[in-house]
């Protein structure tokens, strides 16, 4: 069959066709386009005037911002206070250390996202070593000025709560998922009760428990760092959610895999370790990334039990400052964009991964 003749259209013609198909295909469609365009133009110009034309940039004083009388954004609040927003009350002269720790953390996240790192040993080595270096950077010692945890704050805390809140919850989550599918009635019951109990209550109540109730269950005089308690609460909370994700992966395993492992004479643990989990965990990776995003956003709740995370640092440096407090919109927008960049990047990665793994699975 001869190939159909190729129609050569000019770019202009092509874009006209595209416009007609996508924006003006019917009267109703045309009206929608015009209404949305009008709305966008109105909102867009107003926002542009506020955020760019009339705005104050650079390290201008609060008087300059007050003179704008709300007609322009006061980005100077960010220019003046970004260090405090990012690192809290960490000593000014030493703030390169948390900055380096944050960069290191991000590099480790990126490294963990590459396929060649997906081996338990490599990941444990990477995170073990990385954690040691970050802790050294944050806490000091060995040539660096010591900084007590009471002065830590801001973005490093948020990253720490999120990353360890997932990493350390993972083994527990896997055990709970296995427990929920176990043949042993008591093991199963304990797992189900734990998972459903945790998933049924909001994170805040668990954080309250950690910050108020926990001390009552320890021997008198023994006390934990507040930050550590919140971290433990987040780990225990996440484990239940991770368990449900892992359970999804386990359920997707065909029965033949178990039977084959059994035929090879493998016991329960060796079956799980060598046959089931490597496959089941792999297919749940995109879902795990999504639950990490949720966890990353959820860490901001620690503000309620007065932990100095990134959101708290932003709130403290802008809203609690009598001079600058009117410019909280700019401060919060700054915080929103930082959270957004992290979450959006991760959600795109999860989408990419999903299609990538699917394609691999099919070939």
């Amino acid at each position: 069959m001869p190939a159909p003749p190729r129609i050569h259209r000019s770019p202009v013609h092509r874009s006209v066709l595209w416009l007609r198909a996508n924006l003006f295909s019917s009267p109703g469609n045309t009206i929608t386009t015009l209404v949305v365009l009008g709305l966008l133009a109105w909102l867009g110009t107003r926002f542009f005037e506020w955020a760019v034309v009339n705005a104050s940039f650079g390290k201008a004083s609060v008087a300059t911002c007050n003179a704008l009388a709300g007609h322009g954004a006061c980005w100077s609040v960010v220019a003046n206070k970004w260090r405090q927003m990012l690192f809290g009350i960490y000593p000014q002269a030493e703030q390169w250390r948390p900055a380096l720790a944050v960069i290191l953390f991000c590099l480790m996240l990126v490294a963990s996202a590459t396929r060649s790192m997906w081996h338990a040993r490599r990941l444990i080595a990477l995170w073990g070593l990385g954690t040691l270096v970050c802790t050294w950077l944050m806490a000091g010692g060995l040539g660096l000025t010591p900084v007590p945890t009471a002065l830590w704050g801001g973005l490093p805390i948020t990253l720490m709560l999120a990353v360890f809140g997932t990493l350390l919850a993972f083994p527990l989550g896997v055990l709970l998922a296995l427990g929920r599918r176990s043949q042993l009635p008591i093991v199963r019951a304990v797992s189900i009760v734990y998972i459903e109990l945790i998933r049924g209550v909001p994170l805040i109540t668990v954080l309250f428990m950690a910050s108020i109730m926990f001390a009552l269950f320890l021997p008198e005089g023994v006390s934990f760092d507040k930050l550590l308690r919140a971290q433990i609460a987040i780990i225990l909370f996440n484990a239940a959610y991770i368990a449900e994700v892992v359970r999804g992966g386990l359920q997707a395993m065909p029965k033949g895999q178990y039977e084959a492992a059994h035929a090879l004479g493998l016991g329960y643990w060796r079956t799980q370790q060598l046959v089931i989990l490597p496959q089941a965990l792999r297919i749940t990776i995109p879902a795990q990334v999504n639950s990490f995003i949720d966890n990353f956003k959820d860490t901001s709740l620690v503000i309620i039990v007065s932990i100095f995370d990134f959101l708290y640092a932003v709130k403290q440096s802008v809203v609690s400052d009598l001079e600058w407090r009117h410019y909280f919109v700019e401060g919060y927008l700054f915080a929103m964009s930082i959270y957004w960049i992290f979450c959006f990047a991760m959600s795109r990665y999860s989408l990419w991964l999903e299609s990538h793994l699917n394609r691999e699975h099919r070939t």
Partner: protein
Amino acid sequence: MNMQATERLRNVLYQVALVGAIGLVAGYAAFNLIHNLESRSIRIGFSYLTREAGFEISEKLLEYDATYTYGRAFVVGLLNTLFVSAVAIVAASVLGLSVGIARLSPNWLLRQMASVFVESVRNVPLILQLLMWYGMVTELFPPAERALQLGPMFLSQRGLSLPWPEAHAGWPAALLGLVAAFVFWLIWSRRTQRLRAQTGRASAAWWPSLVAFVVLPMAGWAFMGAPTAFSMPELGGFDFEGGKNISPEFTALFVGLSIYTAAFIAEIVRGGIVAVPKGQIEAAQALNLTRAQRLRLVILPQALRVIIPPLTSQYLNLTKNSSLAVAIGYPDLVSISNTTLNQTGQAIEAIALMMAVYLTLSLAISGLMNWYNARVKLVER
């Protein structure tokens, strides 16, 4: 001993060890707890619920002041949680459905707008959004003296003040009429459906219902004496008196929860619609149904089967997320329990009550949704 017997023995041992470990930890914790409570002279028990609370609550659906008990305060907080969750669930569903449909619109621009909305809302922590909304209401709106007047309503830092009918038996009667109209609508639409199935002729289903929705509430209102007295908001000092005030806390929580959850619901709705087989849509087109009819009669009923389970968990999330109210000072369950435990020191009881309530709510909502899910499930031949 044969292999099976060894395995059975091992299984028993595993479980005994697990129970033992849990028992040991629990026992140790209980031992410490008793000791700690003794040394701090806290008496455990729920008797504090009958003591006088001594704190005011700014928003309440029940009669309450500082002389009422902690138990009453707890109920007031619970009702506030339920109220804001219920209202926000309705708003989030409507908004989420619209955005989800807009994401599949043939109009490119609308599609893009919908995705920008979804991607910007769901990638920012809810608590930050709540703080932003709350700040905007309390800081950027004019003070009460210079409130924006929208007809009989006033918008200011004190929230939205609007006229509200004075208490009179006519209003509940009108509400009853509304419920009656709703019941009528249900019965009537079922009847017309049945008639259509029997005779094949479509009968006008909508106008008797519309009449019912207008006439029944008015009848109830008129029958009980047709009250017309409204309490109007008026500026007195620094605040509005009279009328009904919708507080900035409630507004921020309501708007924040609705928008945040709507972004997730939109994705669920989109996924559900995409999951409807293409042949269904083509068949509907072949029957010459309009786009709105296709959506309402063919696509949505089938998409609902896919949508309901994840939607349930979004409703649950919203209810649990309403606990963030404590960050902006709306007196919800968590906020009131927090005040209570700070005043009484009964941390264990207050937190346990709070968790029990959320657990019950979770189980209740998922039970309800499972029931509905079973009803809309595809009936296979």
